[in-house]
């Protein structure tokens, strides 16, 4: 490792966060985050989904303001109130999918808003282009400075962003999961660029879910969990097993009791489901009374699989069978008729209709069966809505209150009520407890558990390990669109699930 100790001693760390906290309403995203990134070093920040990594990045970038703690940049305490301030002081963030102007050239993108000028304010194109050629040779990449950025691969777009950062003389580069969409060769090139930047004395914060990359590229690693700092170690002094332990190392309490249920016949059978670029060869079954979890990291393709099964999205090949009947591809109405229900991931966009009333939301999926002589009356709707709202204990001032006025947890209960009202035989829940308070969370868990106890087949997508381990009879781990492991309740531990979620090869 080429960390230069002389540089270290002479300079304060590039980034230093101590006990930084940040809450959104009643939800604490960061409890106490600490991070110390030295100049001339590549520092990895790892943790489970929801550990607070993105919040840390957004605070450093000036997108969020911290509630407490200290944040020092090159030795001085700073309070960035917007992204321009952090950018001007030399911090650059390279996102997973850069946002460039597609129809103008690479050169103009790099100098957007600060083009060098000649007399009369004319843009000095010759100088601008020469500077870009310099930048690219400095980074050791071959890219045509004159081509428009439309059609560039994501890897090349990242290079353009990095070039832009270097042209601004950024001292700190934050790469937020930069390799997620990159091929092997592209990753190698990115790493080469990152190393050369480190050797120039710049600090790089590298956020990744891939341990192999962390070990290949980084000098130091900081682990976060539940919004808290856990540990920082030199890469040479740690192992994958130790990092995994640090990432998940909490007690899986008995907070999520799955009731013992009689496991019945296969209800949902998914066979060789395939959609290029999203998921590949996905096969599994869910039986009556069973809760099967689809575990994995955000972006692994789990929601895409769920939406293809339910029919809101299409798939290229494969089949989905419910109670022995094969579903028509891309037809959610037919799927509903056969007893499939999906509580989607994005509650506010896909789950509830915020503008609509609680009653109308709950009865939306059963509106056809509530008709009498072709007429749908508010009274009938309210009766059905009242019944389901009370079964799920939805807290609302009245049934005609708009769903947007409810808390997140109660909105989620409304979505659950809507689907349970259809009397489904398969319930797919996608992140059923994301962003809802602890009390409502356990109510949702109890409801799911009882439903399975009553013979419902439940497929649960969850990024929260305790939820997966506590609730599921079986865990399917998805990594990059493929099922990489199938674990029984007994086999499933934080370590086995996390390992399968971060590795291409299967463990089971």
């Amino acid at each position: 490792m080429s960390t230069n100790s002389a540089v270290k001693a002479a300079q304060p760390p590039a980034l230093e966060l101590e006990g930084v906290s940040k809450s959104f309403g009643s939800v604490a995203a960061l409890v106490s985050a600490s991070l110390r990134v030295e100049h001339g070093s590549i520092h990895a920040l790892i943790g489970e989904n929801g550990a607070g990594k993105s919040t840390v990045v957004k605070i450093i970038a000036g997108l969020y303001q911290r509630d407490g703690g200290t944040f020092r940049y090159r030795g001085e305490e700073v309070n960035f109130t917007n992204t321009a301030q952090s950018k001007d002081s030399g911090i650059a963030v390279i996102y997973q999918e850069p946002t460039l102007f597609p129809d103008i050239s690479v050169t103009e993108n790099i100098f957007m808003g600060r083009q060098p000028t000649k007399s009369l304010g004319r843009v000095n194109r010759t100088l601008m282009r020469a500077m870009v050629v310099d930048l690219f040779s400095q980074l050791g990449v071959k890219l045509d400075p004159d081509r428009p950025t439309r059609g560039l691969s994501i890897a090349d777009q990242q290079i353009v962003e990095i070039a832009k950062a270097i042209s601004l003389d950024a001292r700190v580069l934050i790469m937020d999961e930069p390799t997620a969409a990159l091929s092997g060769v592209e990753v190698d090139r990115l790493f080469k660029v990152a190393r050369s930047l480190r050797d120039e004395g710049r600090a790089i914060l590298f956020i990744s879910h891939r341990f192999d990359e962390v070990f290949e590229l980084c000098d130091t690693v900081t682990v976060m969990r539940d919004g808290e700092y856990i540990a920082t170690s030199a890469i040479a002094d740690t192992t994958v097993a130790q990092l995994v332990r640090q990432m998940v190392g909490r007690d899986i309490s008995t907070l999520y009791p799955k009731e013992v249920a009689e496991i019945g016949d296969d209800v949902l059978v998914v066979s060789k489901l395939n959609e290029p670029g999203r998921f590949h060869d996905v096969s599994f079954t869910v039986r009556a009374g069973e809760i099967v979890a689809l575990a994995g990291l955000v972006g692994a393709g789990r929601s895409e699989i769920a939406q293809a099964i339910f029919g809101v999205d299409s798939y290229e090949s494969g089949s989905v069978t419910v109670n022995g009947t094969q579903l028509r591809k891309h037809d959610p109405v037919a799927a509903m008729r056969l007893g499939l229900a999906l509580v989607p991931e994005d509650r506010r966009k896909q789950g509830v209709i915020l503008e609509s009333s609680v009653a109308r939301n709950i009865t939306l999926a059963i509106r056809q069966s509530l008709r009498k002589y072709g007429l749908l009356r508010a009274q009938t709707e309210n009766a059905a809505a009242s019944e389901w709202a009370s079964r799920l204990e939805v807290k609302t001032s009245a049934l005609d209150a708009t769903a947007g006025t409810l808390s997140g947890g109660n909105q989620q209960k409304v979505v659950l009520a809507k689907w349970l009202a259809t009397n489904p035989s398969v319930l797919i829940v996608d992140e059923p407890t994301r962003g809802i308070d602890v009390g409502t969370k356990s109510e949702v868990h109890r409801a799911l558990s009882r439903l399975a106890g009553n013979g419902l087949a439940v497929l649960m997508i969850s990024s929260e390990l305790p939820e997966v381990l506590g609730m599921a009879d079986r865990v399917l781990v998805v990594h990059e669109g493929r099922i990489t492991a199938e674990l029984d309740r007994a086999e499933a531990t934080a370590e086995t699930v996390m390992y399968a979620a971060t590795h291409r090869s299967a463990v089971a």
Partner: protein
Amino acid sequence: MSDAALTSAAPRGYRHHSKPLWRRALFTREIAVFAALVAVYVVAVFSVPNFAAPITITYLLLDVAAILFIALPMTMIIITGEIDLSVASVVGLSSVVFGTMYQAGLPIPLAIAVAIVVGAVAGFINGFLVTVMRLPSLAVTIGTLALFRGLAVGLLGTTAVTGFPATWSDLATSTIPGTPIPSVMILFGALTIVFVWLLHGSSFGRGVFAIGQSSEAARFSGVSVERTKLILFVLSGTVAALAGVYYTLRYGSARGDNATGLELGVIAAVLLGGVSIFGGRGALHGVIAAVLLIGTLASALRLANVTSDVINIITGTLLVASVVSPSFFAWVHEHWTRSRGRRARAAAAHTDATPATTQVDVPTSHNH
């Protein structure tokens, strides 16, 4: 599934409504439009000579009948968040088809049927482009506005077909015996019952609102978004064609340029009636009241010898005001609340008292 509660507590009841009936019934946009209609009517009866005569009502309704018809499906289309600008051109096209079919010797009922089928096909073309080709309805129907009008004028040139049998043209202009109400209002009444059922009393209508409020959530709840929109565009074309037949018989003339610009009157009335241009909100009784309001205002002003330019200015201002008013009231409400809060805080600081609550409950008359 068992009937037991899925969570711990015992089942509980819910209030169906957060506000008492009289507030829900009175403080609505629709009632405001209706009140304006009554006000304009009463003022006109007392101040405009001849306005009180029954014949005024007859002509008023004959004049707005085409707009009333087309406003029914247009309301539903706008509630889904789409728009159909081609309706007036469909009126022209159906008028021309009806005229040429009659000229070619077809019996009138058959000619009417052909015209209506042509309108349905025109609506299907719109719907197909919007739902299958996934093009924005604004662009599609601007295109077909020109296309259908072009076809209409192209078919008949600058000539007109006239000389429809008196029994039929009389039917279009006659009144219900003993009343000043035109007979065509019977047809309108029947259509209104169908559309009120469709929008407010059927499961299809629930889907229409859901699409306008969030088409993504609607799709995830098993609403066939594309099919619903396609049906609405076909309905729009069909009803516009029916209006075209009426228009032809009412004026006794089938021309390619019949009803040019009528779509703007329809859309203006729909928006004035409280339908949100962003979709998801609206009711048919408000729209019908708005069509009658614009019609009454225009008719009263015309009788008072106000020129049509001025009438346009007045109805235009009314429309802009109606679109602006909800956001204006919200702005006033917010400022009032905030300045009340400031004053309350200032007072609290002065008297060193505990901070006063700054929450005020303002009864809003611009309820939706």
